[in-house]
């Protein structure tokens, strides 16, 4: 039983990275902008965060640096896509490739660097509970922040005026524009916010999850987060579910290998992807439901006055 408690804890940790990035991309896509540059942003944020912690020794400055790097790249992307009207998918891919290369270049001097010892977290009192303590209450604060972020997004998008405006911009920018809202500036704000969250995810990887720097260390999680947002039909709760499911099955497949299950390890490696796709597709199999949830102007540029 103890092993399962630890497995659950590892799931929360593993899913957090994907969840933060996917929720950031969700904000992007709710406003109608697809940012395929997630991988590049996460890598640049990872090196920014790592370098910040190496030089200052403070994790939170590292997270802030990561968010800043993500926001900066996203802002450049936003200016290109929203004001100059470049193709969103192509620009996003370009950003991704740029991020991969630039982070490798910037990180050359940091490869053998080491961070000060990572603190262990435990909520006093709750952490001593027999099974639940290990499973739930010994996580880094960012893990709990992720859950709070998800709840916050659900409330904000569904029940506040500003959330409604964001959704309106994503569904029908022409109508929002007619009502007098600054559509392009709102989209830019969404893109920057999404970039900041992707940056936070990237910094979390290099500062907490795998506290080192090697080029390409995000290893595809940005792309997985992008797919996750789509498969979860742009609903924050499902994004969180999908992220934890992916993280959980990843840890499970390693656990199964360790226990000695007689399934080829390659098949087990594919299990997280298969499981996440199957579950999310089953949940959202109603085509009308998908059409209702997808922001109608996703991927299309908006030109006021046209």
């Amino acid at each position: 039983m103890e092993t399962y408690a630890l497995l659950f804890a590892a799931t929360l940790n593993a899913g957090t990275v994907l969840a933060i990035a996917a929720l950031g991309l969700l904000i992007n896509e709710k406003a109608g902008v697809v940012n395929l540059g997630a991988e590049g942003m996460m890598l640049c944020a990872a090196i920014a965060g790592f370098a910040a912690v190496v030089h200052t020794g403070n994790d939170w400055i590292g997270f802030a640096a990561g968010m800043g790097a993500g926001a900066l790249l996203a802002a450049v992307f936003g200016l290109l896509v929203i004001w100059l009207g470049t193709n969103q998918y192509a620009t996003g891919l370009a950003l991704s490739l740029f991020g991969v290369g630039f982070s490798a270049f910037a990180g050359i001097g940091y490869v053998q660097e080491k961070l000060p010892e990572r603190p262990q977290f435990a909520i006093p009192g709750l952490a001593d509970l027999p099974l639940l303590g290990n499973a739930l209450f010994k996580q880094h604060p960012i893990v709990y922040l992720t859950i709070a972020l998800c709840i916050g997004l659900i409330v904000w998008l569904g029940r506040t005026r500003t959330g409604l405006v964001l959704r309106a911009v994503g569904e029908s920018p022409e109508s929002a524009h007619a009502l007098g809202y600054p559509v392009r500036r709102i989209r830019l704000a969404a893109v920057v916010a999404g970039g900041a969250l992707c940056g936070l995810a990237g910094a979390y990887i290099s500062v907490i999850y795998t506290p080192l720097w090697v080029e390409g260390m995000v290893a595809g999680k940005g792309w997985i987060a992008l797919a996750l947002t789509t498969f979860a039909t742009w609903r924050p709760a499902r994004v969180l579910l999908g992220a934890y499911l992916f993280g959980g099955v990843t840890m499970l497949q390693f656990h199964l290998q360790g226990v000695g299950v007689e399934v080829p390890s390659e098949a087990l490696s594919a299990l997280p992807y298969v499981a996440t796709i199957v579950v999310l597709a089953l949940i959202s199999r109603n085509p009308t439901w998908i059409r209702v949830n997808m922001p109608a102007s996703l991927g299309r540029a908006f030109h006021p006055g046209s």
Partner: protein
Amino acid sequence: MTDFSKRSVIKLAALTAIAAAALVGCGKKEEPKAEAPAAAPAKAEPLKIAFAYVGPVGDGGWTFAHDNGRKAIEKEFGDKVVTSFVEKVPESADAERVIRDMASQGNKLIFGTTFGYMEPMLKVAADFKDVKFEHATGYKGAENMRTYDSRTYEGAYMAGVIAGKMTKSNTLGVVASIPIPEVIRNINSFTLGAQSVNPKIKTKVVWVNEWFNPPKETEAATSLINGGADVLFQNTDSSAVLQTAEKNGQACLRLGQRHDRLRPQGPPGLGHHQLGAVLRSGRARGA
């Protein structure tokens, strides 16, 4: 009229190229004749050596060690060699393109540093008989292609002995990369070494199925530690497993270069041991 002039321009260009090549060819032929009487050529052409890496030079592991080997060659042989490398060459048809490119650029000694380059290198070796190919950790060769490896299984055996003595839970964990013969050999050596000093140990192996994926390696290491392993052994290319082990106060052994910066910070009595199986794969034999 335009077509005719284009064709004649192309003809002219082709003739010029052939003439130039002939002149150059003639020129080259004269040199050896003039030099043959001399005892030893004072200024021979430097040997061009090329390396194809599977991962980034900054991986802190396999490719990093190879690149250190390359720099060692440059230091040792100085002017007599000119080295170059291409990193992150995937183990696919792309590898053939890159290696063929290296051979056409005048490299006379080409190192392919991973198992997956075996078939592409065989194909290129058949087409470039005057180039020597060195392939790491494979099992197929040719007239001009040989396999090289380091005796990592010896280091792995020693690691196993240390692990067998250090473990308190009698469970050892291995984070393994891709199931090729060399990796399986290392894991078996590790287990045999541990069993030789502690017959009760059990080795748990987890396959990441990639050479290099730090987050996945971390997850694999975490699942092994959660499953009761208190000494880890890794065969993947980054330092992620080392970091995870340290975070949890476990010991981890790996084959590779020295990590002076990664000092042990676990509880007293446990530490990290970097074995001396430094990969000096860069020594060009008889170059």
